[in-house]
């Protein structure tokens, strides 16, 4: 039983167009067939960022960071709220490419390495880094000087943020976590509340008071 369900749904239909319109504009910008221009990253840097993000969230039978448009999210973040991380990206990408060539002579950059090699490189980079404070449950923002940690956070942001926040293209990230993109829901929500009879007092009430 959901009290007020119908009335609530009607209210949403009446009141939400403006909210939905804004969200849809954001989605359409990302669906545009013309390749978006990068604002901060060079084409070469964007290629490496794409490759790193694709190892954090690879593409398999479900979409990965590439399908979610994570690189566009990161580029826009570097232009706006994460602009202080631009030097970290520039230096970090150089470092990652250097490490690639050292480890695998003849491979000029990270994006040219095989998936297995890429995983080895990222594992080595993570091992080298001092253990920084893990993000807390309610605050994933960390001021990190560790490039791999920062790109990890940004990749997750770009993958899972509501598209209103400029990532998660076509809800690719939410397909992976199996989250329905709808803005409202009615019960039953899942497996366990199906057929729930409504709250009843316990059969054998033991009076404790």
């Amino acid at each position, binding site marked *: 039983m959901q009290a007020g369900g119908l009335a609530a749904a009607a209210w949403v239909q009446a009141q939400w167009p*403006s909210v939905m319109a804004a969200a849809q504009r954001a989605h359409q910008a990302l669906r545009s067939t013309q390749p978006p221009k990068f604002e901060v990253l060079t084409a070469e840097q964007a290629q490496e960022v794409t490759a790193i993000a694709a190892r954090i969230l690879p593409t398999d039978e479900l979409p990965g960071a590439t399908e979610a448009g994570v690189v566009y999210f990161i580029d826009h973040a570097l232009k706006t709220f994460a602009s202080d991380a631009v030097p970290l990206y520039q230096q970090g990408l150089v470092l990652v490419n250097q490490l690639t060539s050292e480890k695998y002579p003849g491979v000029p950059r990270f994006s040219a390495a095989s998936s297995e090699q890429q995983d080895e490189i990222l594992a080595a980079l993570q091992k080298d880094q001092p253990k920084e404070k893990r993000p807390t449950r309610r605050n994933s923002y960390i001021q990190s000087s560790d490039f791999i940690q920062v790109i990890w956070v940004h990749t997750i942001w770009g993958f899972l943020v509501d598209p209103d926040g400029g990532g998660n293209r076509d809800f690719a990230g939410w397909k992976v*976590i199996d989250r329905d993109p709808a803005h409202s829901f009615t019960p039953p929500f899942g497996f366990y509340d199906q057929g729930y009879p409504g709250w009843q007092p316990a059969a054998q009430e033991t009076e404790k008071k």
Partner: protein
Amino acid sequence: MTQSKVAYKTSDEVDFVIVGSGAAGGVLAKELATNGFRVVVLEQGPYLTEADFTHNEIKVLQQHFLTNDPLRQPNTFRKTPDETAKKQPCLVYGRCVGGSSVHFTANYWRFHEIDFVERGKVGEIPGVGLADWPITYADLEPYYTKVEWEVGVSGLAGASPFDPPRSKPYPMPPLPVKDSGVIFERASRKLGYHPFPAPMAILSQPRPGRSACVNCGFCLGFGCEVGAKSSSLSSVIPLAEKTGRCEIRPNCYVHRIETDKNGRATGAVYFDSQRNSHLQKAKAVILSANGAETPRLLLLSANKSSPNGLANSSGLVGKYLMPNSGAIAYGVFEEQLNDYKGFAVSRIFHDFYELDTQKPAFYGGGGLDARFDITPIAFAMNGLPPGTPRWGKGFKKALHHNFTRTMEIFCHGTSLPVESNSFSLDPDLKDAWGLPALRMTFKDHPNDLKMMEWMQARAMEILDAAGAQAKWSPPVTEQQFAFHLLGTCRMGKDPKSSVIDPDHRTHDVPNLFLCDGSSLVTSGRGQPTMTIQALAYRAADRITALAKQGAIPG
């Protein structure tokens, strides 16, 4: 942008200036304006409305869209007074019209009788400043009922055998049960507990201008886009403004309460958004700035005759901070719960509300709730079991399986009042306006940590009884971050051992009142906002009576 129909000049001596528009400030504004008084509410944050709210997790949770900004408003933290505090974010509160009621979980438990008389019942506890309230549950009961009916609380009266007496049922039925609630209810009944529908300040039925909850799933931490969450913004502030006597003035950062040579408050001094300073004159001042900013403002208002801070002759302003204790247990189940749908909590139990001080030997008590309040980004960061890969196919597989199958059992409990636990002014660090930053000094009383470990073990038993495929619980550790800001200007009859009297008037300044989390004498069992609002309704009655008797010298 203000929505108010009236705009006062700062030189107009209004009847009341209220600092803060949250759970308490909103109620006081509505009540006092309705009673015929001219009211200005000064809010440090912006005036956002439903149309401004968003599901953008980065903007809301990472960029502090609705809350205090640790970059412009830095804090320092230390465990004990003999340490030098270090700069670190240590608290969160709402910084917008509606305050923390905009982003809260909306658990609306009443306090029980015991919370007001615990000191008398358990006696003295070494190292603890436990005190009885000067008012009882019976004094507050009519106001709890008023909160439920006026702001809108969903629930089922009589469903918990541990509930205190009530004069009226809830105004609307409980919200729908979530899968976490069904799992919790069945398993905890198996173990002999008494789960019941959680009372929530979220509408299960529509009200004028407000939708019933649409179960969008972005609740805790977010502002409600349909007005279903019963924040001050959605409930009482529109009523306050409708009177035509109340102005809500946003973007006003109050940093001083001005007094005259007779020691009477004359108004509140604030920076506007351009950092120009103004004095809003008023016959009386009410601080509802929250349990951190209210004591800070008193300390910032020190003057020649009150060198230790305004209204601080007791020396207790800022002390006895109680953030409540907490612990979590996580469970993953075979089938999909889809618990991301809906508000946070649908089932709770109060079997541990009043624990036996002999067995299991804890003071205070608590309640357990079943919930899932972790939005997608936060889930990827911290919602997976320890040891899960953090990148690659293993990471992705875990995200795919667990997001829809995870639930939490949250244990909430008492914080005992310890005098050295406090908010004070940092001697070195300044905020972006050049004012001394808030310094938090806090170390959990060992009783509270042991109680949380005990309660967390019960939560793990429930997950076992429920047949969870996997379960884990982060260790209970000393807290260094506060969500609930309670007890820092406590109420009492004796001016030596309290800051405000039972009418919320400061003992020292006859036209200065305090009403918010700082007024609480004990911390209850973890859900303070219902009690803060009941106190605000009662305070409005008391203040109105005093004003009408001519007993507030301006």
